């Protein structure tokens, strides 16, 4: 189940999105998320979804990969939608047992569902098309102005790159431990929430132990190579923002403004 998580995974391919400057990409992704939460009205949502679809197609990554990435989150997404459906007060449409479905409920359930799906798809576009190394490099550059107010930009970037780097490793590890415990008859799927939570113990204890062990090993390896975070470093590959990056960003921003406007005009 864990190997399906695509957040933090990078798929090597060649596309406009892969070549785009990572700094621009991060800023545009933040913008994407903000816009997703301020748009109003179904027309805007449809246009926004269409834009996301275009981006997915532009990424040269099979849509299947994105669908697979949504799978582990299906429960949360459906749960949120159902909660919205049943618990929103308003004009009652259907009533059964202790539940009532309101017109507003349906509306907010659909919006929540769309938002979450688009949120995951949009943000995974960033990580799928940007290698973790470039990503953290860009974060470091973006944070570096803050180092004047004593924000440890390099340390944050380093911690992030280590964290991102270990997601697939730990996912592999989880998969392995899960298989091993399954072979010993452990059952992770059936039972109520409490038995399921208890069933996670044989998985989580070894996973934590191995994560700490790995962290320890990494720290030793870094120490033995005299790693020191306070030393100023120059970069091997510095990425420069080019004309193509700027024009892409402008197109993206304009598209988003148009989408937002649609919500307020219609």
């Amino acid at each position, binding site marked *: 189940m864990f190997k399906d998580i695509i957040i933090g995974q990078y798929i090597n*391919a060649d596309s406009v999105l892969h070549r785009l400057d990572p700094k621009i990409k991060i800023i545009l992704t933040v913008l994407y998320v903000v816009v997703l939460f301020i748009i109003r009205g179904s027309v805007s949502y449809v246009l926004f979804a269409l834009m996301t679809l275009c981006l997915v197609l532009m990424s040269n990554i099979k849509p299947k990969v994105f669908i697979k990435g949504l799978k582990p989150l299906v429960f949360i997404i459906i749960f949120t939608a159902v909660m919205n459906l049943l618990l929103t007060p308003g004009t009652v449409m259907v009533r059964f047992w202790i539940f009532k479905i309101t017109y507003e409920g349906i509306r907010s359930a659909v919006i929540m569902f769309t938002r979450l799906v688009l949120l995951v798809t949009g943000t995974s576009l960033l990580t799928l098309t940007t290698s973790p190394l470039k990503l953290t490099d860009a974060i470091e550059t973006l944070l570096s102005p803050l180092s004047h107010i004593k924000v440890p930009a390099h340390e944050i970037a380093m911690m992030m790159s280590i964290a991102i780097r270990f997601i697939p490793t730990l996912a592999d590890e989880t998969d392995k431990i899960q298989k*091993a415990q399954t*072979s*010993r008859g452990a059952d992770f799927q059936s039972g109520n929430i409490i038995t399921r939570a208890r069933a996670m113990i044989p998985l989580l204890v*070894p996973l934590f*132990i191995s994560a700490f062990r790995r962290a320890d090993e990494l720290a030793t390896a870094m120490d033995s190579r005299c790693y020191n975070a306070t030393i100023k470093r120059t970069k091997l590959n510095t990425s420069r923002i080019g004309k193509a990056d700027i024009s892409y960003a402008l197109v993206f921003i304009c598209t988003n403004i148009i989408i937002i406007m649609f919500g307020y005009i219609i």
Partner: protein
Amino acid sequence: MIKVKNLNYIYQEGMPDQRQALFDISLDFDDGKIYAIIGHTGSGKSTLIEHFNGLVRPTSGKIYIDNSDITDKKTKFSDIRKSVGLVFQYPEYQLFEETVYLDIAFGPKNLGLSKEEIDTRVRYAARLLDIDERLFQKSPFELSGGQKRRVAIAGVLAMRPSVLILDEPTAGLDPRGREKILKIIKNLHTENPKMIIIFVSHSMEDVAKTADEVIVLNKGRICMSGCVDEVFKHSETLQSIGLDIPEISKLMHELSVLGVPVNPDIYTIDGAYDNIKKILLETNN
């Protein structure tokens, strides 16, 4: 008995990094024998054994264990796992319980056995793996590497499987730990004469010492299979796919090339000792 018929497995089918890990594997494993699966890293050894207890479903092909088809969607996995015990690589990393006793009892407890039965099984498995009962109340994390590994293997054995599969059981152990594990495998075989034991290994010495039959995998295909004597005769083929032959085989080969009348197909130190002794006695006479 395990029967594997035309097994194919494609890893991450439909994804960009899809690749075929196993090609048309057909194999028979008979009761009461020790099998070794050898092959280079990435040859598909681990993937193959994960099929045997239903952790991985084949893309195509069939696997029968005691005549029941485990690739059938209706087969209950809990039944397969009861009869096929799988010990993973570095199994000590799966230990999680507070005490050694509880960790070994985890498997039998999942089978829903009575307290008394669990107790007998824990003691049985501990005895077979030479785990002192005084360790039972200790935390598994306080043990040495070799002890941890034996506790982890005991945890699988306590489920009393009729097929025991071990993925690189001696990896990362010191020579004494290796010896101990191999001896335990041999002992298991004498105590459970009908049990099928399959182990994956990189070490030709381990294979020579322990296995009855060898299966050689190369790039997801069966390259050779048969009894140890036969397979080790093909030292060139083994070396050409990146596998090594036992040191002692190399020595016997070299000697016979130099004109010493030794048997070049010997692969154990004991065999070589007898052979060389015989030749020395003959020449002395």
